[in-house]
Structure formats: structure tokens, C-alpha cells
């Protein structure tokens, strides 16, 4: 078998080996490792065998803890088993890792190393997760590149089998896991040559089996535990030698020689950097560059970090070394130094003592941190470290890559320093997520990598929004393998492409362009008119850098060829045409080949459409004759307006403009606490169309406001006097609210925050009787409306909010008079979750503490730069936090315990201070009815009076009470998360919190898959739906979480779908909050992962309910006290077939389209599921309860 050159990312490269050398794979999705599990699942579904000819079993577990447990079990019984994970996932595996290592069970865990959440969550790469496993007894093997990760996946597997020491094989999350690079792919013969089948047989023989039974997992006492723990020593002592032997065998097979500690650089180097992971490749390339310029430096790339072999490190360090910098991609606050640094210090000391070192004199050793959370680590930073090493008194415990103006730990570096080679072509592309830029660039890199002799690399940067997101693609290609695991720097790009014209006014993209480079712009303006539409900064950059400037009206080509907003293949064709990497004809042939490869499965029509786009591109591509002078009157827009608060302007503003790397340490909060209400300052203007209100048709039902996922359409009732200062286009009519007579009414849209999802239009029930296509809300082009509506919106916000005490929010229309305190999130346009979250914020936001599980809701709720949780005019609003994925229910319970405890303590103090405070006030406070907004408002006033009085009292108890007096006002605790949390990873905690009887409200945003990580199946996924890890359609029914909770008898449970019955949804939320015990609301949340027209999300909710798959109900234990049945069904008998609902969704349809027989069989079972459950519910709802005081029933 000859080896192929392939262009892929490390997740795929690693999974390729791991899948073929294992038989049981237990996983749980977590970024950035999910790709490894997904590839394995896809291969297993396609019946691809491993090297022994059998198809590995891939199983998705409920958490990484579960995955590790399942792997442990599989290993114990003699399987070759593996898992893939990262970050918190790896941390959850730690208990089992101790066990697996303690039992000397060979396995390899492949880890896309990622930051562990501390002051904040980060999905990006560093070694803090791997470092947390140092003590488990697992060997730790690091890879620096895609090729190394591919190779080391096999080396680890072979070495684990031979040494019996289990391995963590890790590589940098995102930087390596997601970098696309050209590698030589190992063949199955290579794998067979490296894996000794005798060792596999030994695994079988050590397995637990009733045919030759043994006992493992005993409990040991002080007499023997210690000795037994030491009994494994020979295996760990032998391990490094075995790994090197395996590496040598691998070298003889492939020609790629690895060492435990790879040394690169001058043989007589005096300054050496030691590090591991992708940064090592950057350091190696920089060292070679510097040595070519006369310096004497070197780099030790650590591959085998555990077991740490002092001897091997000593052999790697040159005799001439005088100073060493050890770089750690992790932080251990309070430690004597970061872990690799400490290990090197110890090893050098021991090496000298033992006479193993080649050098005679103790080198000076300094340690530093770099690259946390995928912070860029560039040659400039490497040079700064080498420069530091040359100093007489180099700084120790430094940082590099940031500006630490607080403890002055950071090294200065010259950002202009670059080692980029002249013969490497570098290209930067700015695209919109939805336009397909990244996908096209991945294809381009594959074409260049696989169809030319060039080395090729692609790396992709995304912002953190799920709608209107910006992508930046960094592509390099050239005559050698590309070893540059860092972004293309300023002034280094030969080619800059902007795929969306509007980016020009937001982003400084030509800073990347190299003088004399090429700038390609997708523009509706042709070559003769485009110049006048460019901002000043763009014009001057083009002139100053003497850029060749090309335009294409990609939008037009896309529209004419039916591509809609996807300009991907069009821009790709332009790139090949201009870059000349291939002759034009050949390039077009290759693009078409890749189109067939990518889209062929989806049908000829898709292929032909893309072909048409490619074919019509070149005629529309034009070079622009660049004028000599800057003539523009427009300048780039500020990221945030001047009116924004200072923190928003100075800190969040640069982050919005992709300039956050420049913020110094002092700019950031020390403890991860950020101000609320910042999303209002990030005007993204992503909607092409926005809703327009037609007052003459409006019936003031509030439905449009209710369903808006982004809180951009709002209604207000206000005194007519305010209209005197209304802007000219501000619309208003007489209000029809019986509690608020004589008022005016307006529905207003925030034009710059709207995502254009049109859910409001779909929800609007008011149609023009003379023209039914016209509703009271209709979509219209945003640009002509933007300025007027912006002014109207500002005026609208300034109108006073109606007095909460004046009306009850018990109808949909009234509830929508409440100000949303969750606004303008980065959720997908048309998101099905956020309307529920927003409703919580409206009804209870001013007195809510929110615990939010990790997932979509924690990302659109808490991902910087700006966050959507907001405040009302009194400054009150939801207090929100995310702890982890698995512990959210417990996290929320803890909040409740605090509030209850403080309320209790405050009440005690209040009674104790009754004489000083005044008996009447104390009694009023303690007996206050806080069941209504009016009651709560009255209590707040009392507490304000109390605080005033307390501040005058010298008794130290008064001071205590002052600190917790606010706990006397009723607070709500909301525990919010998705189905991945509630049904799977957090279910144990959720169950316990429900059982606790405490007054918490749990909102499950049920999308029936793990939405945030890309649609993996959860126990909520319904039968017959396709999801990742259920690629053949889920064969078992959805878990009935509501019914499980009902069995407690004292939990309020509701199942809601606002698109089907908004009033029932509202009622459920109000009842849940009012219920003095645990409440659980399971909310149908349509999702992009369902593969639906998001505009029809509400309609899908309705169909789900009508089909019976989502029956609406409320179970209110309070009703039992009244002798009533607590279960109220809010749904009628199913009135449409399940297929009428399901086959409008891709998740169901794609099974029909790929395996019709199975789809039909599963659909039949799914219909039975619906039928069975409906009959059960109906009978439960019909039970007549006759409960007697003394227990038992007649």
C-alpha cells in the first residue's frame, strides 16, 4: 500500500488512526474534540472496519465521566478501547484515569487540549486540561502539528500496548485539531506493522472473564496499599525507553524520526527554549531562521512529558547551553512555577548531580507562560524569549504574547518581526458564516494540497455569534510542508479577499496585505464605480501598499445562478483565477471536481447550480484601475458609539473590532465579573429586511413581541403627551388595554439589532381584509429604514414603561408590556430558545438569579464581547452566571439555599432589632404578601425604609442586616439549560434538586439535540430523528422527563410550546414561579439543528403539538389540595399524522432520503410512542382523586 498525501485537520488525522486501531469507542461531545468522535461515528455507520477487519462500536455516553467509565469497563473486559475529549471533559475522566492507570491497562485517550474554565469558559486551546491529569499515571504524549498528531496517535497506541501504561495523546485544541494541513497518511499496513498482535492477545488474556476469573478493584488497607502502589514502578521506568523504541521503529517505517525530546537548532546553541505542542513548531522554525542569521539557539520539543525521562532530556540539551527558557501553555496560580518549568529545573539539577548532563555548568533556567486559550504565539514572541535569554538578568515567570501592565510580567516583542518565506503564498479571506467562505477555502486547500506539489495549510477564525458571524480564513501554500501554526500577520498576506462589502466599514482588513499584494472585493459596484464607495482607510491602504484591486459582483452571480447568499464557489473561482496557483482551466476543472465530491451526494441539481456559478464568475471579475488619490468622504465606523459607557468603549469596543488582543491585563476584570446590559451597544446591522408595523391593521395582541427571539420588536402603552416630541416617522395609535385607558400604543423595531428572522410576521394574526398577504407586520428592506427607525427606536426607549402595578401580566398582550431584560443576543436568527429566556426576563427578571448550564444559552447569554442580560430603568435585572455543564441544577440550588438562608437570618435579625427599627415595619415586612408585582414593589419600599433606619443604628446586628436586607424581597431562582444538560449530563443533579423540594424554577430549552456542539443526539432526541451518533435515526423513544418529574408528586411540571399555545406557555411560567417548590418547564425549542426553515419554527411547534409528539400539559401539585386532578392536558387529541409534522424537518427527512425502509419502520414505532403516551396522559388526567386526611383512599 502506498501512502497518500492528504489534506485534513488533526481531529480527522488522529481519529483515522484511533478508529482503525480500536474496537470500542465511548465518547461525549466537547469542543474542540467533537470532530474525532463524529468521524468515528460516521465511519462506523458506514461499516468501515478497523485493521483487524471488524467495525468498531461507537457509543455516545451521558458525560465524559460516563465515557471514561465505559472505556474502563471495556478495557477491563479485554477490548481495545479509546475516547476523545478536552477540557472539562478530561477533568471528568480523571477518577477513572487513576483507576485505568492503576490497573496498568493500555489505552490511548486522544485530547484536543483546551483551556479549563476558571474566571470564564474558553473553548480554545492550551494545556491546562492535560496538566490536570499529570498525577493520574497516564503517560502524556504531545504532538505539535497535524502530521505529528497523526503519527503519534499510532505511536501512542503501540507504546501503550507494549508498556501497559495508558496514554493521553494530546495536541493543541483548534490550532492543531482544526488546522487543515497536508500530511502523509499512514496506511493500514503501517498500522499493522506497528501494532504487535501478540500484545493485543495479551490484552485479551488479562481481561476479566468468568472463564478464568480474577478480582480487580479491591479495597486495600494501610498494610499493603503503599507497597502495591509502588509495584507498578518497573512499568513506568521502562515506558520512556519503550516509547523511543516505538518511535525508532516508526522512523524506519516512515522516515519520520521522533524523539522523546526533539532538539532543533545549532549543535552549539547557548540559548534553548523548551516547550511542547504547536508552539514548539513555531519555536523550531524561528530558531532555524535566527541561526541562519548567525545566532546560536535551539529548541527542545517535548513529546513524552510523562513519564518524564531526565536522561533523555539531558541527551537532548546541547553541552553548550547556558540559558534555558521553559514555556508552559498553562497557568498554575500560586505555584513555584508552571509544571514543565518545574520538571526541567528538577531534571537539570538531577542530571548534573547524576552526571548525565552534557553540559558542565548549571544553565540559568527561566519559565514563562504563553498562548492561553489559543492566544497567538508567533515567531516574534519566540524571538523575544531568545532575546530575554541573552540578557544578564532575564525575567523569570514571565508572560509573552500579552501586555501585563499590572504585575509587569510580560516580555516586549516586536510585532513586525516575521520569518515568513518569500516563496510561500499567504491569503486572508473575510467571509460571513452563511456565505460558505470557510467551506470553499477548505476545498481550495484540499485542491492545492492534493492536486499540486505544494504544501498547504488552512486555519479558520470565527467570532462568537451564531447569527451574522464573521469568519476569517488564513491560507498558506508553498513548495515545502507549511510549518507555521500561527495566523498570517499584518503586512504578510499576498492576497486579501473581502467576501462581504459591508465589512469594509467595520473591520481593518487591509492591515494584513503585503505591499504589492492583491485585494479582491465582492461588490455590487462595478470596476468603474466601486472606488467612490470605499471608506477612506481602504482607499489609502490600496494606494499606499500599491495593491492590485479586483472586484466581482458575486451577489449578482449568486442570485442569477440560484446560489442565494452563498458566494463561496464564486469567490473561490476568483481566488484561483487571480492567484495563478494553477492554470485557469485546470483550476476550474479541479474546483468542479471538488464540487462533485462535496455536493455530489446531495444531487445533480446542486452540482449543476455550483457549476453554473463557477462558469459565470470569470466574466464578472474585473481589475480596478486604482486612482492616485484618496477621494472618499466615508470613514470606518466606530465599533461602539461615544454614548456608550467607558468600559464598553474602551474594553468591549476593541473586542468587537477584532482588536481584543491589544487590551492590557489592567483592562480586564480580576474575577470574571462583567457589567450587564452591554449588547445594546453592539449594533450589528445584520438584517437585510426588518419588520414594519402597520398600525391600521394591528389588533394589539402582543404576539409579535412575545415570539421575538432578539427582543427587537417591542410594544409600549404611554400617555399621549409624550407624542409631542415624537420623531416625524414615529407611529402611534390609541391603545386598547382596558387597564390603561386613554393611552397611546406603539410597536417599534430596533432596526440595527434585528436579525431579520421574520418570526414576528409569522406570529402576526392580523391580515388585511382586502389583501390577505399583508399583515400588521411585514418585512421590508432594512437600509432605507435604518436611519429613521434608529431615531424612532431611541425615542421609543425613552418613553416611560407602564407601571407594573397597574396591570396583571396574565395575558400574552399584557405580559408584553414588560420590558425584556434579555436583548440582542448572538443566537441564531429565529432561535427557538431565546423567546422563553426573554419571557423569564420580562416576568421575573428584576428579581431573578439565574444559573445557566453550558450550551447554546450560556454562549448567546454570556459570550463576550457583549452580553444580552440587561437591566431595567431602576437598574434591576437578572443576575446571571454559568458554572459548568454538569452541575447547573446544583449551582442554582446553591443560589436558592443562600437566598433562603439570608431571608431566614434577615428575619431573625429583624425580629431582634424590632425595637430599634419599629415593630410595625417589622411586622409589615415579615407578613408581606409578595405574590404580585404590586406586593413586591411595596416590600421593596419597606426594605428601603428599613435600610435607611438601619444605617442610623449602631448595633452591629444592624450592619449585618443591612448587608442582607434585600433578601427580604422575594427572589426567583431560574435554572436554565438545554436538553443535553437536563436529560444527560446534568440529569443526576437535576433529579436531586427536584427531589429537594426547594423553590427553584427549572427551564429546559429542549431542542432534542446538543445544539451548541453541532447536533449530537441526547436522550431527548425523538425516535426516527437523525442526529450525530444517531446517524441511522434514533431507534429508541425520547425520555419523558416531565413524567419522571411528575412521579415525585410535589414538583410543578409543564410542557410548553409557545408556537402552539402562547397563553399556556405564559400561564406555565407564572404558575411555576408562584409554586413554592421545585418547578420544571420543558419548552419545545425549534432549532437550526432540526433542519427547518427557521421562519416556520413556530408553525413546526404547532404541528408538533397537533401531531401528539409534543403534548402540552401542566401538572400543578397545588390542585391536589383542592381535591382536583393535578394534571391538566392543554392539548386535544392528535389531529394530524406524525409524518405531517416530522417530514417537514431535515432531521427526519434525511433518514427517509437515505434509508426509506428504516425510516418507515422507525416512524411506525414513533407513532406508537405518541399513541401510548397520549393514552397514558389522558387516563392520568381523568383520574378522580379522593384523598382522605388520614392517608389512603376509598
Amino acid at each position, binding site marked *: 500500500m502506498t501512502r497518500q498525501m492528504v489534506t485534513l485537520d488533526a481531529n480527522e488525522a488522529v481519529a483515522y488512526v484511533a478508529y482503525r486501531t480500536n474496537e470500542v469507542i465511548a465518547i461525549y461531545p466537547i469542543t*474542540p474534540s467533537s470532530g474525532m468522535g463524529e468521524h468515528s461515528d460516521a465511519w462506523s*455507520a458506514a461499516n468501515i472496519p478497523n485493521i483487524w477487519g471488524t467495525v468498531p462500536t461507537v457509543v455516545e455516553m451521558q458525560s465524559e465521566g460516563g465515557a471514561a467509565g465505559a472505556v474502563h469497563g471495556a478495557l477491563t473486559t479485554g477490548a481495545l478501547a479509546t475516547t476523545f475529549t478536552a477540557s472539562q471533559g478530561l477533568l471528568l475522566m480523571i477518577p477513572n484515569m487513576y483507576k485505568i492507570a492503576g490497573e496498568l491497562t493500555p489505552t490511548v485517550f486522544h485530547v484536543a487540549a483546551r483551556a479549563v474554565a476558571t474566571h470564564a469558559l474558553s473553548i480554545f486551546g492550551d494545556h491546562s486540561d492535560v496538566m490536570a491529569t499529570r498525577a493520574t499515571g497516564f503517560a502524556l504524549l504531545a504532538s505539535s502539528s497535524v502530521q505529528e498528531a497523526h503519527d503519534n496517535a499510532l505511536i501512542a497506541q503501540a507504546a501503550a500496548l507494549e508498556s501497559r501504561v495508558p496514554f493521553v495523546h494530546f495536541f493543541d485544541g483548534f490550532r492543531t485539531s482544526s488546522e487543515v494541513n497536508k500530511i502523509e497518511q499512514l496506511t493500514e499496513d503501517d498500522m499493522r506493522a506497528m501494532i504487535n498482535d501478540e500484545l493485543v492477545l495479551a490484552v485479551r488474556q488479562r481481561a476479566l472473564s468468568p472463564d478464568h476469573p480474577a478480582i480487580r478493584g479491591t479495597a486495600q488497607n494501610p498494610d499493603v496499599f503503599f507497597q502495591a502502589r509502588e509495584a507498578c514502578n518497573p512499568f513506568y521506568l521502562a515506558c520512556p525507553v519503550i516509547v523511543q523504541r516505538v518511535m525508532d521503529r516508526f522512523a524506519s517505517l516512515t522516515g519520520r524520526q521522533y524523539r522523546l525530546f526533539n532538539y532543533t537548532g545549532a549543535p552549539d546553541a547557548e540559548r534553548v527554549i523548551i516547550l511542547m505542542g504547536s508552539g514548539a513548531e513555531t519555536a523550531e522554525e524561528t530558531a532555524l531562521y535566527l541561526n541562519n542569521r548567525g545566532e546560536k539557539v535551539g529548541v527542545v520539543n517535548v513529546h513524552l512529558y510523562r513519564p518524564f525521562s531526565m536522561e533523555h532530556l539531558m541527551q537532548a540539551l546541547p553541552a553548550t547551553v547556558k540559558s534555558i527558557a521553559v514555556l508552559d501553555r498553562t497557568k498554575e496560580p500560586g505555584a513555584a512555577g508552571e509544571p514543565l518549568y518545574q520538571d526541567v529545573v528538577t531534571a537539570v539539577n538531577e542530571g548534573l548531580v547524576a552526571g548525565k548532563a552534557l553540559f558542565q555548568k548549571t544553565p540559568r533556567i527561566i519559565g514563562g507562560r504563553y498562548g492561553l486559550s489559543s492566544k497567538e504565539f508567533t515567531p516574534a514572541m519566540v524571538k523575544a524569549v531568545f532575546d530575554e535569554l541573552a540578557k544578564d538578568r532575564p525575567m523569570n515567570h514571565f508572560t509573552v504574547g500579552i501586555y501585563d501592565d499590572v504585575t509587569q510580567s510580560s516580555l516586549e516583542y516586536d510585532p513586525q518581526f516575521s520569518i515568513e518565506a518569500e516563496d510561500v503564498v499567504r491569503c486572508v479571506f473575510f467571509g460571513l458564516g452563511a456565505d460558505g467562505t470557510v467551506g470553499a477555502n477548505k476545498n481550495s486547500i484540499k485542491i492545492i494540497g492534493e492536486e499540486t506539489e505544494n504544501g498547504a495549510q488552512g486555519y*479558520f477564525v*470565527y467570532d462568537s455569534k451564531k447569527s451574522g458571524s464573521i469568519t476569517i480564513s488564513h491560507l498558506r501554500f508553498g513548495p515545502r510542508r507549511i510549518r507555521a501554526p500561527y495566523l498570517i500577520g499584518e503586512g504578510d498576506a499576498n492576497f486579501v479577499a473581502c467576501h462581504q462589502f459591508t465589512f469594509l466599514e467595520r473591520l481593518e482588513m487591509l492591515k494584513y496585505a503585503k505591499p504589492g499584494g492583491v485585494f479582491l472585493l465582492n461588490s455590487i459596484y462595478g470596476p468603474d464605480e466601486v472606488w467612490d464607495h470605499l471608506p477612506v482607510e481602504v482607499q489609502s491602504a490600496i494606494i499606499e501598499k500599491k495593491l492590485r484591486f479586483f472586484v466581482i459582483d458575486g451577489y449578482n452571480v449568486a442570485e442569477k445562478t440560484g446560489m442565494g447568499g452563498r458566494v463561496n464557489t464564486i469567490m473561490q473561482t476568483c481566488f484561483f483565477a487571480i492567484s495563478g496557483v494553477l492554470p485557469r482551466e485546470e483550476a476550474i476543472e479541479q474546483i468542479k471536481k471538488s464540487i462533485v465530491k462535496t455536493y455530489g*451526494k*446531495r*444531487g445533480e441539481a446542486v452540482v449543476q447550480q455550483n457549476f453554473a456559478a463557477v462558469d459565470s464568475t470569470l466574466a464578472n471579475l474585473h481589475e480596478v484601475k486604482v486612482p492616485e488619490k484618496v477621494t472618499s468622504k466615508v470613514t470606518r465606523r466606530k465599533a461602539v458609539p461615544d454614548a456608550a459607557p467607558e468600559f464598553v468603549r474602551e474594553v468591549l469596543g476593541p473586542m468587537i473590532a477584532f482588536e481584543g488582543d491589544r487590551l492590557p491585563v489592567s483592562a480586564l476584570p480580576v474575577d470574571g465579573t462583567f457589567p450587564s446590559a452591554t449588547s445594546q451597544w453592539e449594533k450589528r446591522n445584520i438584517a437585510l429586511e426588518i419588520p414594519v408595523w402597520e398600525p391600521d391593521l394591528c389588533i394589539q395582541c402582543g404576539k409579535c413581541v412575545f415570539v421575538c427571539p432578539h427582543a427587537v420588536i417591542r410594544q409600549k402603552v404611554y400617555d399621549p403627551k409624550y407624542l409631542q416630541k415624537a420623531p416625524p416617522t414615529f407611529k402611534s395609535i390609541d391603545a386598547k388595554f382596558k387597564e390603561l385607558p386613554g393611552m397611546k400604543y406603539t410597536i417599534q423595531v430596533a432596526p440595527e439589532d434585528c436579525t431579520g428572522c421574520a418570526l414576528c410576521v409569522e406570529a402576526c394574526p392580523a391580515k388585511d381584509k382586502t389583501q*390577505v398577504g399583508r399583515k400588521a407586520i411585514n418585512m421590508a428592506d432594512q437600509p432605507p429604514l435604518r436611519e429613521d427607525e434608529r431615531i424612532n427606536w431611541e425615542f421609543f426607549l425613552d418613553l416611560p414603561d407602564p407601571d407594573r402595578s397597574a396591570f396583571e401580566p396574565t395575558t400574552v398582550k399584557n405580559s408584553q408590556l414588560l420590558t425584556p431584560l434579555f436583548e440582542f443576543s448572538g443566537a441564531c436568527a429565529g432561535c427557538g430558545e431565546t423567546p422563553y429566556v426573554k419571557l423569564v426576563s420580562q416576568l421575573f427578571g428584576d428579581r431573578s438569579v439565574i444559573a445557566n448550564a453550558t450550551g447554546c444559552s450560556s454562549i448567546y447569554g454570556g459570550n463576550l464581547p457583549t452580553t444580552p442580560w440587561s437591566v431595567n430603568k431602576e437598574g434591576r435585572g437578572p443576575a446571571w452566571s454559568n458554572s459548568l455543564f454538569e452541575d447547573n441544577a446544583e449551582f442554582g440550588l446553591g443560589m436558592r439555599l443562600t437566598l433562603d438562608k439570608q431571608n431566614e437570618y434577615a428575619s431573625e435579625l429583624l425580629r431582634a432589632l424590632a425595637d430599634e427599627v419599629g415593630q410595625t415595619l417589622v411586622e409589615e415586612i415579615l407578613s408581606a404578601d409578595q405574590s404580585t408585582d404590586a406586593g413586591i414593589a411595596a416590600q421593596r419600599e419597606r426594605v428601603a425604609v428599613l435600610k435607611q433606619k438601619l444605617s442610623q443604628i449602631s448595633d452591629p446586628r444592624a450592619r449585618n442586616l443591612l448587608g442582607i436586607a434585600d433578601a427580604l424581597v422575594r427572589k426567583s431562582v431560574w435554572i436554565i439549560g438545554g436538553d443535553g444538560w437536563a436529560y444527560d449530563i446534568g440529569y443526576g443533579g437535576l433529579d436531586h434538586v427536584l427531589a429537594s423540594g426547594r423553590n427553584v424554577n427549572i427551564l429546559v430549552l429542549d431542542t432534542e439535540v446538543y445544539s451548541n456542539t453541532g447536533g449530537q443526539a441526547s436522550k431527548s432526541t425523538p425516535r426516527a430523528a437523525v442526529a450525530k451518533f444517531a446517524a441511522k435515526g434514533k431507534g429508541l423513544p425520547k425520555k419523558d422527563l416531565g413524567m419522571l418529574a411528575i412521579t415525585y408528586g410535589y414538583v410543578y411540571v409543564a410542557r410548553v410550546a409557545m408556537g402552539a399555545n402562547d397563553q399556556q406557555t405564559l400561564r406555565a411560567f407564572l404558575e411555576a414561579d408562584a409554586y413554592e417548590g421545585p418547578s420544571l418547564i420543558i419548552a419545545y425549542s425549534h432549532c*437550526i439543528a432540526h433542519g427547518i426553515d427557521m421562519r416556520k419554527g413556530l408553525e413546526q411547534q404547532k404541528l408538533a403539538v397537533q401531531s401528539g409528539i409534543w403534548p402540552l400539559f401542566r401538572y400543578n401539585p397545588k390542585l391536589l389540595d383542592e381535591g382536583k386532578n393535578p394534571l391538566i392536558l392543554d392539548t386535544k387529541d392528535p389531529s394530524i399524522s406524525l409524518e405531517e409534522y416530522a417530514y417537514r424537518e*431535515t432531521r427526519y427527512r434525511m433518514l427517509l432520503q437515505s434509508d426509506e425502509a428504516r425510516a418507515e419502520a422507525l416512524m411506525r414505532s414513533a407513532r406508537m410512542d405518541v399513541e401510548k403516551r397520549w393514552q397514558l396522559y389522558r387516563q392520568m388526567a381523568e383520574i378522580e382523586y379522593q384523598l382522605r386526611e388520614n392517608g389512603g383512599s376509598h
Partner: protein
Amino acid sequence: MVDLSTTYLGLPLKNPLVAAASPLSKKESTVRRLEDAGASAVVMYSLFEEQITHESLALDYYLSRGTESYAEAMTYFPDMEKYNVGPEEYLNLIQKLKKAVDIPIIASLNGISTGGWVEYARKMEQAGADALELNIYYLPTDTNLTGQELEQTYVNLVSDIRRQIHIPLAVKLSPYFTALPNFARRLVQAGANGLVLFNRFFQPDLDIEMLEVVPRLELSTSSELRLPLRWVAILYKRVEADLALTGGVHTPEDAIKSIMAGANVVQIASELLSNGINRMSELLVGMRQWMETFEYESVAQMMGSMSQQAVAEPAAFERANYMKALTSYDNRLYI
């Protein structure tokens, strides 16, 4: 024993009851049951080029949307090995049916582009279809498009397909042509071996409470028989093509009327959809009994016996409603 056999599109059939294009032909098992119940041939459900194109583009849209734009979710669906969004499933079914049953299998096609029509027709022939029924329907809304242009498009289409395939070709028509006999003749000249009268369509309905347009397909009733009956009777012997009558055949008597009007076969769908596949054998028994009762020997004998050219009063087929109110008389008595 009466002889029920007939021929259609050159295919010898054991009786004139053919299963019309309907969802019943989507499965091998139901086609077997149709054969067992006595159907002499099966017209498969239509392959809609537009649907194939739409499904393919829709699948691509939903699988692509939201991908490669957010770091944690590069995709939202697993990548399936294959999707049956092309004509393959249909073509495979033709092959399967050909193996499963002995009766002829007539494929049915509704295209949108000339290329699509021809390509799919060829593929159906290659897959083993015994004949092809072209399900032509275009709803003109363009006020600049003339009837002549539209008819010419259809005629061109038939001749394009005829040039590419060798199996017999039938054209299923709608009744909405100004000069149907002329158009029918042109289709036959272009290469059609048979005409199927008439196609029935989804007709939009209006929901006047929700103020929405709702598509609706009502199953046919016997009363609808009269429209095709008239045109079969008129076209019989006027065009050199076999005739299939469809739409409104629910009873043995309906079938007999159709044959007497000149149909080589009747195509049945609604009756089977509402009353089950076994209804086919009941119709056959009924036909046979009727023929025995009235002493007919064969289908061939009665075929066209009441066509316009065969009846005593050909003008009866040409009268519109009000004419029926007039007293009929025969002026030949007054010489």
C-alpha cells in the same frame, strides 16, 4: 367465457383494468398485490423532475445552513453515505418491479427542462420500463404565452423524447386545450403511441377563516367519468393512437362505458385508494358478469362501439348542456 384481453401501446394485456399512477406503485409489495388482484399493467407514480431538483437543493440548503460559521459546530447533521434525492430510487424500483411481477410496468415522468425530460426518459427505458407515460402539465400564468406556443412546446418535447427512446410512449393530458383533437393528432404525429385522458391535479382551495390557500386533492367520483368519456369517444379512430381513460372509473359499468367509448384500457386509482386494492378483482368480476349477462364475447368487440363515429347520433357528443333541453327529432321522416 368472455375474452377480457386488450392491447395498449402495443402491449398485450390480459384485461383492460390498469392501475393508474398513484402512491400504490411506490412499493413492490403493493404492486404485487395489484397484480394478484388482476391489474393488467401498472403505471408507476410520477417521477417529478421538479421535485428531484427541489429536494436536492433543499437538502443542500438545510445541510449547509449554519455550517462552518461557528467554532463549536462546524455542521449540524451527520454526513450520510448517500441520499436518494436523484432518480436512482425510482429507477431501482422499476428494476425491482420488473423482477417481481409479470405484468407490464409503465413508468411515468413529469419533467421541467427539455434536458431533464429526455435524460430521465432514457434512464427509465434503460431500467426496464415497458412503456413510458409522459405526465405533461404546465400551468400558464404568463399573459404573453400563447396557446399555440405552449402546444408547440409539448409537441417538440414528445418528438425529442421519441427520438431518444424506443419503448412505447403515452402522453397524459389535461382537458384544458382549446382544440383537443388537433392537439392530440399533433402529439401522435410527434411520436405518441397513446393518449391518457385526463390528468387530475391538486386544486388550490381557500380557507376563509385562516385566509390561506390550501392545496387539496379530492379523489374522483363516477360523475367525473363523463368528461373523459366524451373525449375518448370523440378521439377514437380520429387519432392513430391507443386511448386510456382515467378519472372517474369506479364501477364495472364505468369501465364498460369507457371501453365502449373507445378506450383500450381504463386506469384506476381513486377507487383503489379509497376501497382497497382488492376492489380491482371485484371490478373484473363485475365486468365479466355484465358482459356475460349482456352476451358480449370480448372487450375487442365492445371497444369503440359507442364512440362518436359508431353511435347513431354523433352530435350527442358535441352538444353542450342546454341542447339537452330541446326535443330531438329526425327530419328524415319528412321526405
